[in-house]
């Protein structure tokens, strides 16, 4: 296996888009290509994550359309569909092909345009990510899954729901605090108070509006290259040193969803490949589609013991200056969650953190960063660990 690096990254501002998902990907991709100092013809394959383009715009074959849009006709172009983890799988597959020496340069990322759909339709379409025969017919929504996770968590660790809700509100507050100063974030310029979080409408008890990620449009892309090539293109290649992936079936088949075996297996695979342990990670972008999801993921990744994640939030361990700063981009909660693009946007943030280019959101002394992306009913979970390659 060869060493592999990210040469450059690009992303659109997340939120409500007036351009199509092919156009969003193209915008992010051309920015990533320009940032990588390469000519588009150096690219040998295009991998694009996209969850629901079929319904959102009647657009399938997303990767070929995206490749053609930026003049890369004739290249191998592959779409990845794994709900919210689609973009991460696109990047992991780029890593694999380049590491095997089959390609030197691959363009990878994701795109999604959810705001073409009404909230009920978006809720139905996001619901494609649970078991269509055994769960969807109950009307189980995504907030509903994480709502049940919150109730299980409170019961399992024997804490009053109000105490867990306070930690969840703090997760939301932290996300909006950092998202409000991230120009790419859907909630850029909009700081949110604890009062507003507590007063928001109930979506699926005990989750309120500010426990839930928004419905978003956006695209993000990265140029993945062999380290030899990347070093010639940039002074700051970001090396991919570990990847992992795991899967699960129906929510009910996993029983106690306060522990997600797919996440624990996937992250352990990534740590093993990188030769690192959780305490070696300096900054993390993890899948905070709901506030309780951040707490549970912070435990599943090994940053905190099971049942300690909510206390870690209250201690400030996951905020700037804490033991492991999490989601300094504003996370999915405040940056937005155009599902197919999310994994690539997480990588975008970690690359910029490693390069020291995040301004007021910059974590000091970052040497190693990690992404965690979760799609569907914990159906697809994937991890990427990166470090400075200079």
């Amino acid at each position, binding site marked *: 296996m060869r060493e592999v690096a990210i040469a450059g990254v690009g992303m659109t501002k997340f939120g409500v888009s007036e351009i199509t998902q092919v156009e969003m990907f193209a915008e992010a991709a051309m920015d990533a290509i320009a940032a990588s100092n390469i000519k588009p013809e150096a690219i040998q394959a295009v991998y694009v994550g996209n969850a629901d383009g079929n319904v959102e715009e009647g657009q399938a074959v997303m990767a070929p359309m995206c490749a053609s849009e930026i003049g890369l006709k004739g290249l191998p172009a592959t779409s990845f569909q794994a709900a919210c983890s689609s973009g991460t799988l696109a990047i992991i597959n780029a890593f694999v092909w380049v590491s095997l020496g089959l390609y030197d340069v691959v363009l990878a990322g994701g795109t999604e345009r959810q705001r073409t759909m009404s909230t009920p339709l978006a809720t139905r379409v996001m619901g494609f990510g649970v078991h269509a025969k055994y769960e969807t017919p109950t009307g189980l*929504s995504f907030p509903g899954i994480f709502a049940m996770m919150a109730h299980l968590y409170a019961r399992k660790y024997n804490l009053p729901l109000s105490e867990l809700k306070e930690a969840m509100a703090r997760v939301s507050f932290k996300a909006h605090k950092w998202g409000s100063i991230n120009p790419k974030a859907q909630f850029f310029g909009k700081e949110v108070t604890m009062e507003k979080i507590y007063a928001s409408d109930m979506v699926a008890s005990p989750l309120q509006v500010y426990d839930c990620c928004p419905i978003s449009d956006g695209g993000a892309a990265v140029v993945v290259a062999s380290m030899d090539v990347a070093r010639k293109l940039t002074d700051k290649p970001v090396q991919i040193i570990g990847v992992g992936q795991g899967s699960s079936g129906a929510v009910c088949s996993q029983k106690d969803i306060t522990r997600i075996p797919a996440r624990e297996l996937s992250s352990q695979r990534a740590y093993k490949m990188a030769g690192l342990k959780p305490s070696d990670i300096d900054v993390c972008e993890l899948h905070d589609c709901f506030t309780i999801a951040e707490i549970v993921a912070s435990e599943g990744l090994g940053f905190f013991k099971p049942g300690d994640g909510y206390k870690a939030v209250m201690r400030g361990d996951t905020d700037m200056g804490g033991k492991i700063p999490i989601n300094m981009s504003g996370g999915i909660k405040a940056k937005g969650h155009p599902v197919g693009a999310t994994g690539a946007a997480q990588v975008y943030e970690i690359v910029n953190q490693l390069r020291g280019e995040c301004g007021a959101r910059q974590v000091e002394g970052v040497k190693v960063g990690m992404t965690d992306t979760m799609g569907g009913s914990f159906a697809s979970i994937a991890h990427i660990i990166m470090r400075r390659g200079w």
Partner: protein
Amino acid sequence: MKYVLTADKYADALRGGKFLGLKCHQCGGYTVPPQKVCSGCRSEDMEVVELSRNGEVRSFTVIYTPAEGFQPPYIVGLIELEEGPWVTANIIEYAPEKATMEELMGRKGRIDYQEVPADMFSGGPRIALAFKVAD
């Protein structure tokens, strides 16, 4: 090997008054809802059995922002069956405003089912498991 209990046969059995699952001849465990191999040991050597319908609420949520085609508020729960597996079910004949952790978690009851109208994505008619909490 032929599929022992398909999603359609499982749904039709519920419509006919039977709640079916799979019992494994190798490990003795139950697999519900059905799938190709035992959820405990991956064996295909399973027989179709009628289940007790007894279960207990392990978690729940009241959904206020529904998926298209559903009328809020409604309750979805994770139910642990007496035979061991967990299933996703609507908790029915229970007032959503009374659905609190204290009231619902750990409550015993019985499995039933509801017809759910087909929609453009469902690939035909469908059913949802339902759970009635015992008094």
